[in-house]
């Protein structure tokens, strides 16, 4: 049994995905949540308060993904993070759609999202670094190659789901992870390939 505040937040998330932040009216939220506008106003003073509450929860979940750094000391660590990121972007699909609107009207939220995004990029870079010292990934042949790899991975992570939906293709965790692993594969050493085949391949295929 969700309490009213949680119910409002859940309804708002759905509406944001369907109509976009700018187009959602407080009356709509109240109707869909099954309460009166007055009741809504009691819990959230204005639209700004609702948006902040919704995005606070969202950003907390997003930064929670950061907590799983190096919980397993092998390639599975990458895999776990891919799974977490996929789950996040799939269930919070309204997030990307409204990003530009958020950037214009709620700069504080956008700043926080930016900070977490940067941290995820740093994590990817550090994971690549660690695996290089462990001998699973080739050291950089050209300067900045690993930085580029991390950025390509972040690009894929962020835009894979919307692009798949746009092209009418199936969105599954397995495809998502395969796309990301395929980015890393060209950089594996023999040892890396062996570990990949032993540990990761059985999980995704």
């Amino acid at each position: 049994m969700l309490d009213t505040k949680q119910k409002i937040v859940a309804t708002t998330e759905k509406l944001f995905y369907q109509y976009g932040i700018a187009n959602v009216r407080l009356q709509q939220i109240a109707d869909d949540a099954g309460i009166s506008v007055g009741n809504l106003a009691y819990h959230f003073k204005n639209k700004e308060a609702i948006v902040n509450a919704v995005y606070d929860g969202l950003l907390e979940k997003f930064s929670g993904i950061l907590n799983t750094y190096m919980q397993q000391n092998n390639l599975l660590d990458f895999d776990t993070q891919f799974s977490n990121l996929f789950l996040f972007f799939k269930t919070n699909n309204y997030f990307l759609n409204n990003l530009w609107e958020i950037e214009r009207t709620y700069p504080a939220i956008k700043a926080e999202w930016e900070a977490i995004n940067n941290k995820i990029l740093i994590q990817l870079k550090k994971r690549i670094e660690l695996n290089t010292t462990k001998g699973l990934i080739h050291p950089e042949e050209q300067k900045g190659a690993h930085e580029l790899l991390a950025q390509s991975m972040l690009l894929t992570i962020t835009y894979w789901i919307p692009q798949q939906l746009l092209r009418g293709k199936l969105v599954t965790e397995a495809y998502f992870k395969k796309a990301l692993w395929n980015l890393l594969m060209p950089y594996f050493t023999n040892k890396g390939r062996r570990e990949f085949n032993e540990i990761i391949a059985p999980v995704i295929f």
Partner: protein
Amino acid sequence: MLKIKDANGTRAPVMKPTKQYILEHALKQFNKNGFVNVRLQHIADAAFVSVGHLAYHFKNKDTIVDTLYEELKQQQESLLAEFRVVPLFEDIQQQLIRLFLLQKKYRFFYLDTLEITRAYPAIKQKHAQHTKWKLQQIEFMLQFNISRGSFISPSPAQHLKETAWLFQTAIDTWMYSRNVLGSDYLNQHDFLTAIWSLLLPWCSDMGLREYAQLRISAG
């Protein structure tokens, strides 16, 4: 052209703004304030017409966006069709520059793609097809360069499709992610560097030399 009666009662042809003129101003407004926040009144004011006149040319806001998207699509298609000719690195660079300028002109669409495709399923359909077509062009470009010897063939062959996808996604979303990360999204040099850096890992020695040549001539 609308003909009105002046003070003398004679019918004199008066130059009223054409469809194209209104469209240009609509584009400017969209680029400035974002597609969601622009009302028909704003466009009408910017083009010095009444809302009624606007309605004569364009039934509603959806039609305006649709027309603008058609324009964008056509211009992109004519650009990318040239890819089929002989995509040497010099040509690729030219294509990228022109693509960038096009994105700059219609930036409201690129900065808000997800929102617009959500709100207009018809545009979403068209954009999906257009994206698929673009992907094929890029795959062709990569294939050609592999056979020419300037790219190393990725193994397995699946990688070609994925590299093409990454390349195309990067081009389409560069402005969006730069804007959202708060960096300058109208910097052509940054755009070119970012896109080329995706291709460099695939370059053979010959390709790298050609790219160095490109950088020198670009200054």
